[in-house]
């Protein structure tokens, strides 16, 4: 066994319930190598990391199959502590730092050097006094190793985000015997200059023989720093290539592309002559992680417009901004009428209906029945399903018509349930999504905004949901704006596909443009053809 390997992941598979998230993943990392793991959200990157770090969530859900080898030896990582002992360091996406503590206290958290005293000899090591001098000295050493001049006794509070990232790294390298450091999207919150400093620090670390596993979906950085690139998609390793053999467009394409039959049902150019139903000008949306920054977009009446792009570039922000769920600015005209922003009532009145990507958080009332989930939103916003109480001037919900309507929807969408009164919490993801679709249909949209309609649902439900959306478009002339991270899905549904990059529309492509073009566009390549 070559002990140059710091980490070898062998045939690792993992499923949450019936939902497979990792399928026979293989990954190897040498001493001093910087290995980039790229993939879209939901590709299985975080699950793989959780396995490496022995997070309880893995073992609570039945563990995983396959083997993890560290430094040429098979190892059992059962808890984060095991991982730390084995020499794995982890830099989390959300900072695992305490703002009220100083840098040194953070670096040494729960690893404080202590001195025994008379009381601790009686009452146990918890009562040993903390050795502040050694704490400061060790921290200084670690900070110096990554060349950051921050004072080790300053409180973290008020420190720039960039420094915090370095402190996380310092904490990891301060651990003795660190052989592998895993960084999850380390540059997501950094400015340009901070990022480049971080990357050079990583290079130094690798130079000292530590393996670096770098998780990102920012391809420019990956190409700047990595020695090897592994693409993960749908829980499978698509390819592992040395950097000098890889090209940005190929990698982007591999991250999003899916090999499915390209069943194009929309006729090319069928909506070219139609007027615009939505005219969006200079739209900015404050959606954390998905900021939109000055989007101009026209949506034609009767079309299905796709919005794609890599995660974090703002594709999800548009619909949330239009519906007033996230704070937004700009102008939006619907049928030449301006819709006031940040007012979901106004958006609904204008005929916009939203199928949220956050099904359980926004889309459903989890503890209510199927029928209520389908109907109540329409009762409130469309005044449907109400009846008068005798001669009184008040109207109440009409349970009978709600029940009937729910039955209709259940059979139309083939929702698998025990009846319209079942609580939606117990339904499977696919059936929950169908309930959401039913709710949206019931609200009689003119423009249907659909975000990630097939995320986390089974194949059968996927097909059903997409075909219903398509039918709504074809039969009732409902305009659809569909946001999805699955390019193949967009291509099979849409008339045009807008690609977001850095909070802006980077290009609008035809669904039958070649894969490479999409990849190029998503990676921010300039000069976009197709529109």
């Amino acid at each position, binding site marked *: 066994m070559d002990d140059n390997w710091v980490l070898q992941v062998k045939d690792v598979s993992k499923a949450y319930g019936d939902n497979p998230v990792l399928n026979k993943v293989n990954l190897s990392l040498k001493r001093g190598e910087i290995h980039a793991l790229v993939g879209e959200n939901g590709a299985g990157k975080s699950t793989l990391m959780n396995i490496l770090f022995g997070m309880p969530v893995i073992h609570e859900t039945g563990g995983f199959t396959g083997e993890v080898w560290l430094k040429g030896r098979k190892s059992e990582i059962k808890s984060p502590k095991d991982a730390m002992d084995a020499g794995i360091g982890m830099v989390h996406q959300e900072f695992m730092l305490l703002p009220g503590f100083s840098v040194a206290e953070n670096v040494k958290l729960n690893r404080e050097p202590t001195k025994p005293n008379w009381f601790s000899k009686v009452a146990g090591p918890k009562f040993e006094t903390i050795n502040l001098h050694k704490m400061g000295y060790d921290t200084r050493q670690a900070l110096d190793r990554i060349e950051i001049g921050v004072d080790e006794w300053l409180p973290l509070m008020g420190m720039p985000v960039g420094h915090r990232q370095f402190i996380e790294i310092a904490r990891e390298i301060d651990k003795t015997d660190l052989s592998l450091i895993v960084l999850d999207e380390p540059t997501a919150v950094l400015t340009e200059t901070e990022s480049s400093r971080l990357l050079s620090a990583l290079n130094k670390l690798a130079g000292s023989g530590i393996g670096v596993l770098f998780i990102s979906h920012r391809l420019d950085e990956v190409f700047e720093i990595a020695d090897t690139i592994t693409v993960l998609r749908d829980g499978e390793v698509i390819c592992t290539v040395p950097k000098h053999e890889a090209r940005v467009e190929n990698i982007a394409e591999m991250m999003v592309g899916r090999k499915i039959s390209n069943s194009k049902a929309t006729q090319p150019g069928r909506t070219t002559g139609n007027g615009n139903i939505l005219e969006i000008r200079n739209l900015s949306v404050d959606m954390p992680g998905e900021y939109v920054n000055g989007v101009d977009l026209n949506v034609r009446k009767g079309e299905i417009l796709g919005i794609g792009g890599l995660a974090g570039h703002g594709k999800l922000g548009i619909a949330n901004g239009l*519906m*007033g*769920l996230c704070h937004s600015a700009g102008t939006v005209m619907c049928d030449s009428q301006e819709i006031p922003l940040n007012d*979901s*009532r*106004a*958006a*609904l*009145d204008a005929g916009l209906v*939203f199928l*949220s990507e*956050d099904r359980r*958080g*926004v*889309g*459903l*009332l*989890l*503890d*209510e029945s199927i029928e209520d989930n389908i109907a*109540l*939103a329409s*009762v*409130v*916003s469309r*005044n449907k399903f*109400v009846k008068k*109480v005798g001669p009184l001037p*008040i*109207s*109440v*919900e009409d349970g009978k018509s709600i029940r009937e309507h729910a039955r209709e929807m259940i059979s139309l969408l083939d929702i698998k349930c025990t009846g319209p009164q079942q609580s939606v919490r117990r339904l499977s993801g696919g059936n929950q999504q169908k309930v959401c679709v039913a709710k949206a249909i019931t609200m009689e949209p003119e423009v249907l905004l659909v975000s990630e309609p097939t995320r986390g649902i089974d194949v059968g439900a996927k097909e059903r949901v997409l075909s219903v959306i398509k039918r709504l478009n074809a039969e009732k002339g409902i305009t659809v704006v569909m946001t999805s991270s699955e390019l193949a899905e967009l291509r099979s549904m849409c008339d045009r596909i807008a690609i977001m990059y850095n909070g802006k529309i980077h290009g609008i492509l035809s669904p039958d443009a070649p894969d490479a073009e999409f990849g190029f566009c998503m990676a921010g390549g300039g000069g976009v053809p197709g529109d």
Partner: protein
Amino acid sequence: MIDSLKQVLCKFGLPRLTIMLFLVALLVVATINHLPTSMLLGNSLVRIGMNGVMVLAMVPSVQSGAGLNFGLPIGIIAGLIGMLVVMEFRLTGFLGLAIALLVACVLGIAAGYLYGLVLNRVRGQEMMIGTYAGFSIVSGMCMFWLLAPFKNPEMIWVVGGKGLRMTLAVGDSLSGILDRFWGFTLFGVKVPTGLLLVFAVACLLMGVFFKTRLGISMRIAGANPAFAVSCGINVDKMRILGTVLSTALGAMGMVIYCQSLGYVQLYTAPLMMAFPAVAAVLIGGATARKADVLNAVLGTVLFQTLLTIALPVTRSVIEGDISEVAKTIISNGMILYALTRKEGDG
């Protein structure tokens, strides 16, 4: 078989089952000891009617997402002022009661609105803030009672001629006016028809309200604020409305309570009154996130019957008045139980 039994048990809830069994045991002991069962039942009915509206006040507050209304004393104070106004002007009979309810309701709405504004700024901490807002107002009002410009000599301290007394009799024509209305006796059980009727009407109105668009909007706002926003519902407004309804109901509930009791108790008396009301709705099967009219009715019936029957029964077995202690243990224990359950448990 065992599984389905377990399911039924779970659905019904362990606390309710325990209390019911306890209740049955008490009734058995009562019959064995030849206690006047009909009188006990009559008293239970009165106490159910007295407390029912205040328990019902919990429903809109929970439904709108503002949580259990631990700030009920705010409404209670409004109710007390309503009673005092009527007594000061020596209004009697149904006119007096109606005016007391009206004043209580108006003050309750005003106070509830302000309280709702505060609660909207302190999401997640409503219970704690509510408790201490209630405590502060009750203790602040102690000063008011001392200084308030009431002139009726029956209400103010004899010595000094200033400040309201601790306990005021509401007067013969007001005292028990609802209890006596259409009252009748059945198998020796005195039925306070008017009182129960008022509670029933309040429940009915509340039930209908939650079927209107406004009521549904409020339910949605409480169940899932994000969903509500996506339906164009103003969640803040709904929470304020829920708090206003709750406070106004608390105020009117207090008027009903006082007329039945025959006394108005001032100063620190209302301090802890929120807790039994909260406990009752929890006993009825509500949680901090879900409560309906049925929970309020069931809870009131169980809790008040238990307290009424426990007193004489325990007295026949052991010395001393254990009912206050039992009330403390049961109501606080119930609230504690509800607080330590995982969020989202049914």
